């Protein structure tokens, strides 16, 4: 591992505050993006990061600095996300339900908002671009599907790696990703965003 990082870890073990700050500021952007790609909500992602930081600070004391640091940090982050969602389990919002449900990560617009108004064919009514829509739709996926999808697309993990990280059978992980894609596809189809 990088000598600079190794030295920072050694200093962290001696409770060197400056070393903690230097080390974490190097990796926190990456870890935050993992949290955000799952929550799709800044406040929730920051809440998770608070817990991630504390677990890292505690765990560094017994971390073997000869091992690569990033995989260890990723594992902590993914485990924190899993535990956080278990503790703060939100009501599952089914994508088959009403579009305008209120609640965390809810979609407050209807597919009709994305279609041109019938009385004015030249008017284009688009609320937010496609990525915003995809963002909102991902936030509405059931946690299990959302987690598997996040690790697959954001972390580019193989199905085997995802199964290991989540402690689930390989078939379950593949099923989660396939179902997540199908749900997203159907909703985007309703928005006429996947017209070919």
């Amino acid at each position, binding site marked *: 591992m990088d000598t600079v990082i190794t030295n920072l870890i050694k200093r962290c073990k001696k*409770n060197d*505050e400056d070393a*903690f*700050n230097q080390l*974490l*500021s190097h990796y*926190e*952007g990456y870890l*935050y*993006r993992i949290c*955000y*790609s799952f929550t799709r909500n*800044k406040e929730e992602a*920051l809440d998770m*990061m*608070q817990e991630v*930081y*504390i677990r890292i*600070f*505690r765990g560094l004391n017994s971390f073997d600095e000869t091992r690569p640091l990033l995989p260890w940090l990723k594992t902590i982050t993914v485990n924190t996300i899993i535990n956080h969602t278990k503790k703060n389990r939100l009501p599952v919002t089914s994508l088959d339900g009403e579009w305008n449900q209120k609640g965390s990560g809810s979609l407050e617009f209807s597919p009709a908002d994305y279609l041109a108004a019938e009385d004015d064919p030249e008017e284009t009514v688009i609320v937010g671009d*496609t*990525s915003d829509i*995809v*963002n909102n739709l991902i936030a509405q996926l059931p946690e299990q599907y959302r987690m598997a*999808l996040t690790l697959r*697309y*954001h972390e580019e993990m193989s*199905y085997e790696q995802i199964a290991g990280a989540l402690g689930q059978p390989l078939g379950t992980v*593949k099923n989660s*990703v*396939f179902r997540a*894609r*199908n749900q*997203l*596809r159907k909703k*985007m*189809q309703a928005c006429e965003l*996947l017209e*070919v």
Partner: protein
Amino acid sequence: MDNKYSDLLHQYIDGELGPLEKIILEEHLLSCPASRRELNQLKLLDWELKHQPAIELPAELAACRMAALKAHMAASTAGEKRQKSSVAKDLWRMQLRILQNSSSFISINPVSRTLGRTTMGTFSLVGKAAGTALKKRKPLLGRFIPGQA
């Protein structure tokens, strides 16, 4: 659509289709417009998911780190104090055990019982004498301290 073909479509998107499965899927696609449509939609979706815009880092992230670090340092300091207090207590207990062990020979002394009785008897006599002396303290005090008679 048949789940078997739907799964094959997803495996195709993931690039995990074997040669035989690929042939089976291609044969199926030739005769199923719904599957062709679904495949195209999945390709578009896959592209969207792979090209999500970069996530901006919030300004609050550094403050979040500092707050967590402060909490961790406070917890570490409290933990160290508890550890030191515990070390002092352990030392005291060890010294007490040493003292107890070093005086344990008394119990194996063959004359310890006699010694004990004698000692207790002596203490008893001394105690009685002290009690008597205290009762007669005035005259005693008067003998030793002027003006106390």
